[in-house]
């Protein structure tokens, strides 16, 4: 028995893709529509590959895990940022419009350079455990203990996959190029929570205590609404803002 409901009639999807190849001097941004016969449990990953294999071999897009865990395939799907690999076409209308995530450098068509942006964010915010002991770590000895609930709380914030959907959905990020976005602020709350990181609030204030950091957020909540991992981004930002306001 299969539990996936059968659709009565197969649909012919009209997938409209925003095309542009910056490597081609003759290319100008345009919308191109492809028709694809929908199949059972078709995802946008399957549909886009079918287009590339049968209709237009030059179509650019990024998939890695195709399982919703690596964050490669963020794109604008009918106006909303989301992960294409785990979007089932049966949940979408016949007309589907796909565009690259805004706020990131365009590589081509649906492919954007989130990696470069995220590396820059990590370098700027120093998203790693700062501890003086790491150079002389004794790895033969028992590990330091940690409260089980605390480890789980840290993981809750660490589940971010840096897909960029929160940045694409952020009003501030669209206006201010240097805004670090919910993804960056979430990193700060993650390391702030981690007792292994020796930085104090004054140090975190140096990193995010300005308009490009936590005070740039306009609380539009797009980040939390669009986060594919359902991270509690708005709560974390509000909490961090309160902390930073009292620190600064």
């Amino acid at each position, binding site marked *: *028995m*299969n*539990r*996936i409901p059968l659709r009565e009639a197969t649909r012919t999807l009209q997938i409209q893709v925003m095309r542009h190849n*910056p*490597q*081609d001097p003759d290319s100008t941004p345009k919308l191109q529509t492809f028709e694809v016969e929908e199949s*059972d*449990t078709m*995802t946008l990953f399957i549909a886009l590959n079918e287009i*590339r294999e*049968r209709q237009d*071999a*030059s179509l*650019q897009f*990024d*998939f*890695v*895990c*195709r*399982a*919703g*865990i*690596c*964050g*490669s395939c963020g794109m604008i799907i009918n106006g909303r940022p989301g992960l294409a690999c785990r979007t089932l076409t049966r949940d979408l209308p016949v007309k589907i419009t796909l565009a690259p995530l805004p706020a990131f450098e365009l*590589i*081509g068509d649906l492919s954007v*350079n*989130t*990696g*470069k942006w*995220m*590396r820059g964010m990590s*370098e700027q915010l120093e*998203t*790693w*455990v700062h501890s003086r*002991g*790491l150079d002389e*770590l004794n*790895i*033969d*000895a*028992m*590990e*330091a*203990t*940690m*409260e*089980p609930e605390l*480890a*789980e709380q840290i*993981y809750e914030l*660490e*589940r971010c*996959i840096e897909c960029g959907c929160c940045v694409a959905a952020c009003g501030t990020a669209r206006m201010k190029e240097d805004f670090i976005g919910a993804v960056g602020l979430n990193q700060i709350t993650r390391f702030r929570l*981690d007792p*292994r*990181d020796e930085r104090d609030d004054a140090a975190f204030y140096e990193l995010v205590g300005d308009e490009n950091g936590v005070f740039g957020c306009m609380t539009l909540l797009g980040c939390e609404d669009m986060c594919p991992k359902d991270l509690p981004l708005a709560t974390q930002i509000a909490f961090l803002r309160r902390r930073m306001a009292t620190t600064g």
Partner: protein
Amino acid sequence: MQTIYTDVLVIGGGLAGQRAAIGAKRRGQDVIVLSLVPAKRSHSAAAQGGMQASLGNCLGGAGDNEDIHFADTVRGSDWGADQDVVRMFTHTAPKAIRELAAWGVPWNRVARGEREITVDGSKQTISEPDAAHGLITSRNFGGTQKWRACYVSDGTGHAMLYTLSNQAIAANIPVHERMEALALIHADGRCHGAIVRNLITGQLLAYVARATCIATGGFGRIYGVSTNAIINEGMGAAIALETGVATLGNMEAIQFHPTGIFPAGILVTEGCRGDGGLLLDGKQHRFMPDYEPEKKELASRDVVSRRMEEHISAGRGASSRFGDHLWLDIRLLGAQHINNKLREVKEICQYFLGVDPETQLIPVRPAQHYSMGGVRTNHRGESPQLRGLFAAGEAACWDMHGFNRLGGNSVAETVVAGMIVGDTMADFCDSQDGALNISSALVDSFGRREKQRLAAITAGKGHESVFELTRLMRETMTDKVGIFRHGERLEEAVATLQTLQERCRDIGLRSNAPGANPELVAAYRLQGMLKLAQCVAYGALLRTESRGAHYRADYPRRDDLNWIRRTLASWPDAQATLPSIDYEPLDIMAMELPPGWRGYGARDYIEHPDTAVRQQQVDAIDGALAGADRHTRQQALMPFRHLLPEHLRANNQRLGEES
């Protein structure tokens, strides 16, 4: 051609590559990491259930140590593994996990007091001791005697990769993203780096390095149904093979994971069964105890996958319009456990199946999962044939997995091998052998060769479609070189792959888009993938026995008399359509654990005469050292610590066991 110089070039930005990079960098070497994708998106992030390290903190792990981890791993490998390497690995794994704990991985921890667990289909209450509170906990996995898989919910690989990537950023190690190595630069048995293609602009560059490390993961995408990420096309192994000098080890040893969701093949972790989940058939009967009374659902992956396919072949699967499958039942674990410890599993079921695993069954069927084979290295991670070439992680055949890897041993291998190979490369760079001694003419000639190879594909007016040939390769591998193998079908597979290699020379591209051109990428990768596929199929055809994941229906017994040896494939003639196959023997007389029954699976095997002799020796040494501590006994059986970098040799401290 633009040329970039570095001491160490690491090809691959996953766990193995980044840990090796950090190791070499700490030793003062300049390091550059190349990655097809942003490093944090590497396939390491997909490891869900856990990392094996014998900490023995929680109750299920109590009494665990390196000796038990060693024995489990060797039995899991069906005696195909290099036992020195398994010792090096099991000894270093606790150090690796403790390092990662200090670096920031939020490992799940032991909570003191009572808790409910699910064992063998029913609930039990256990009580964790005070002394273990807050230490790293672990869960049960297949083929192990102890609960040894340390975990971060079911996002273990993700947490490890993010922590390691962030440490690499902290160490100021450049990761050149969206870069693909097309060929290794080499001459006279010495590797000097790689010719690399920029996957944004399509431009070719040369990276000249004293030491080059392949850490590109597995090659599951030569199969049609695989849990692997779509970037796992094995290009690192392929470019090593294409040197014609370096060898690949045990390519026929391919692991199929029991629980790929059906039909998409996306992984749901072995932790589902480790935590108490069951496998059910079409009539919702729990069938594994019928086949494997000892370990049931938690026999090793090769055994469970075979039993599942056997059961489906006997007409006892569940049928759907996609074909037959079985069920994974984790309902009995309860909502709280699923929402806390198996949340990625829950998301995958929701998004890809429309199934809520708290109340519904998950359709599963075995899918290609792991490549035990890869670039053959010695115990230090060096290619024995090509100086200056190193390999680590799934891309390597180091060889700690033999013919079947245990769940949780892969992410553990990545960091352990990274730690060791990072040191090996630094030693090499510091030695006379490591001097940079290469002419620009050599770099140019390799650059020209790659440019011509790509131009030939682009300009070709061939009739073949790269996508069609790729589909045929995958279909052939899935149908004929899968879980159950047979001489006749393997011969057909080898012949088909030879034809595909010839047809591959006649590919015509439909797109000549400037930039990376995805169709061109698919075309040049297919050339390498077909060679890897042929190494798998041809190696499987020649190996006339069944060992671990390599099962020959026409030779169902493990044959220690003829096949205690590792397959080595090389490709000396670029125009050939078959690899050159050689073998290296494993010495039973040097084994700490001589061959025997694994404790699950088939009991019937052909014994080697050395086995009884060596077993007697082992028993005699054991008897003579009856009062000695376990380290002394181990040292007498098979000394290994001298093989490790000095700083990794000390004993590991445990609860109740001082170092």
